[in-house]
């Protein structure tokens, strides 16, 4: 695997749209050619080289390419958008849409990400060592297809609207989450190791939410049906089991009504 290192040398006055920072776009290019790829600052078009030092050539394919992003990229949007393979390591924090619509490969962010990370993600792995903003793994505005595959791990906290319109895949949050988890979801799983606030699983048709900490207010559409033992990450624990959203329309599978499941550790 070849490594390309890009280092912020000339931070933008506004914000950068840099969807070209992606193994698929770098693949087969030399450092010089990479520096020539487009970025956008407002209505002006310029190049990666204007803002970043670029060193190292990319591999022949995305899978052979690793990108290391150094320096302050808090004002850079779309890092790793639509990546299908390879790796990106962001050493600090980054802005909106990190790993949006990614289908494969691995994106690691040492710091925090802002909203809309992993929008419509289909596959691959996203690791956020700090905190995630709102709409993690959600659908784009107006779309009904949120995250449908892959894995997300957030070591810190996440904002509101985690997994809105989620269809599949798995999100694990080691810290706490803000309101609205898996609204409108039709599949997938969200595991919250910390505390949750309220509005979990509203309008959810299918999917699983597992909460280890507290829930401030439950949705009225979740009916308690007893306790169960579950194995998560190899450890067994007891959970109160709720099904819902009983107010929402329901799907049937093999003649049986399908409910979403919410488990809260007891």
């Amino acid at each position, binding site marked *: 695997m070849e490594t390309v290192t890009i280092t912020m040398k000339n931070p933008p006055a506004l914000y950068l749209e840099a969807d070209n920072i992606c193994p698929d776009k770098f693949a087969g290019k030399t450092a010089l050619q990479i520096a020539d790829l487009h970025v956008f600052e407002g209505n002006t078009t310029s190049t990666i080289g204007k803002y970043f030092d670029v060193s190292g050539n990319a591999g022949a394919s995305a899978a052979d390419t690793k990108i290391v992003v150094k320096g302050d990229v808090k004002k850079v949007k779309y890092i790793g958008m639509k990546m299908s393979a390879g790796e990106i390591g962001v050493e600090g924090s980054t802005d909106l849409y990190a790993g949006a619509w990614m289908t494969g490969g691995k994106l690691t962010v040492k710091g925090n990400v802002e909203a809309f990370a992993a929008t419509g993600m289909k596959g691959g792995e996203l690791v956020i060592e700090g905190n995630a903003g709102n709409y993690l793994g959600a659908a784009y505005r107006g779309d009904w297809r949120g995250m449908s595959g892959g894995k997300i791990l957030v070591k810190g906290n996440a904002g509101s609207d985690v997994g809105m319109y989620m269809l599949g895949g798995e999100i694990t949050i080691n810290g706490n989450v803000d309101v609205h988890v898996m609204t409108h979801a039709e599949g997938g799983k969200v595991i919250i190791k910390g505390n949750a606030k309220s509005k979990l699983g509203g309008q959810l048709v299918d999917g699983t939410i597992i909460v280890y900490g507290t829930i401030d207010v439950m949705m009225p559409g979740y009916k308690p049906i007893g306790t169960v033992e579950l194995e998560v990450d190899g450890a067994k624990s007891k959970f109160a089991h709720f099904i819902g959203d009983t107010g*929402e329309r329901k799907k049937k599978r093999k003649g049986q009504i399908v409910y979403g499941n919410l488990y809260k550790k007891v």
Partner: protein
Amino acid sequence: MTKTMTDVVCPFCGTLCDDLEVVVSDDGKQLKEVYNACVIGTEKFLHSQTKDRITRPRLKQPDGSWKEVSYDEAVEYTAQMLANAKKPLMYGWSSTNCEAQSVGHEIAEMAGACVDNTAAVCHGPTVIALQDIGLPSCTLGEIKNRADRILFWGCNPAHAHPRHMSRYSIYPRGFFTGKGQKSRKMIVVDPRVTDTAKLADVHLQVEQGRDYELLNAFRVALNNEWLPDVVAGIPAAKIREAADLCKNGRFGIIFFGMGVTQTLSKNHNIDEAIALTKHLNEFTKFSIMPMRGHYNVTGSGEVLGWQFGFPYSVDLTRGFARYNPGDTSSIDLLARGEVDAMFTIASDPGAHFPISCVKHIAKIPSVCIDPHQTPTSGVSKLHVPVAFVGVEVGGNAYRMDNVPIDMRKVVDPPAGMLTDEEFLTKVRDRLKQLKGKA
């Protein structure tokens, strides 16, 4: 002598009353009296007649004082500002006519700007929700003639839309609602005992920030499913009763306002309210309608919609339209420091935006086009006063139920004053020259 003009349209709130009578002097220069309007509507008309009105553009000087400039100088300043910015924000539009909005959007496209209207701080969440799940709606006329179940959720028309209840929703005797108020049941959902709530048959005093849960509980009740004893501070039995009351009507309507769009859950509240409306249609006929505030915020959404495909928070910086509130919305753009020029027209973000946003406006080049002196004109570098739309110039506006209404001119503006549309047309033509497109 005076003359009386009938069927005048009130350019204040989204009710857009079109039955006003206005008395003007014979030469058409002075507005004397206004009949049929509510207090706020009347004030809007009379305000145009104040003697201390500013009639020429003003440029802020380094010492903070204002210097009068010509409209041509104001056009030059505005066009230069837009031509030089990397990401200008063009915000407002809700208190002007569709004709001016349309010219404004031409400017925005040329400047590679972000365009947004006041939905950003009122019914933006409604727009997000209706894009997510649709909107079963109707006209105010249908409500007057048919509706026998009226829900006001998080809105207070007694004060915000004073003639709404008398013209359309509660008191009028319509074709199938011959007994007026007696033909209707009124449900108000509000954490406060508002003047609207005092008139209600049922007042559900929802716990603040728990509208989403209460709406969900209504749907659970419609499905005859299990409910906790109390939801959002309201006993389950009372929720089931209210749900039955809705179910048993012939035609119901949910009106909702900023009490649900701008409190916890925002678009999700509306999303669930629309889902409830759809759900109620399994039992009877139900509709839902946002109580739009500014008289032509609906029109701004319509014009943006047909020109760019999105009704607010449109980002044109890359030459095509993008839309994602949270990224392309005014509050976020300003609070995050993402824009480098601010153009405000026909609204007052200085009074309604968070202080961090207003501080950013003060830091960057800025123009405010408004007949009034406002907090926004105060922080802007250039203030361009214009004629009052709906009073001194006509044009098209959309009522809250998406019905377009042509407004009427009733008096002349003070001599030499431009309208929004005239000023914007000059800016557009100058910008074309600057961009080498003319």
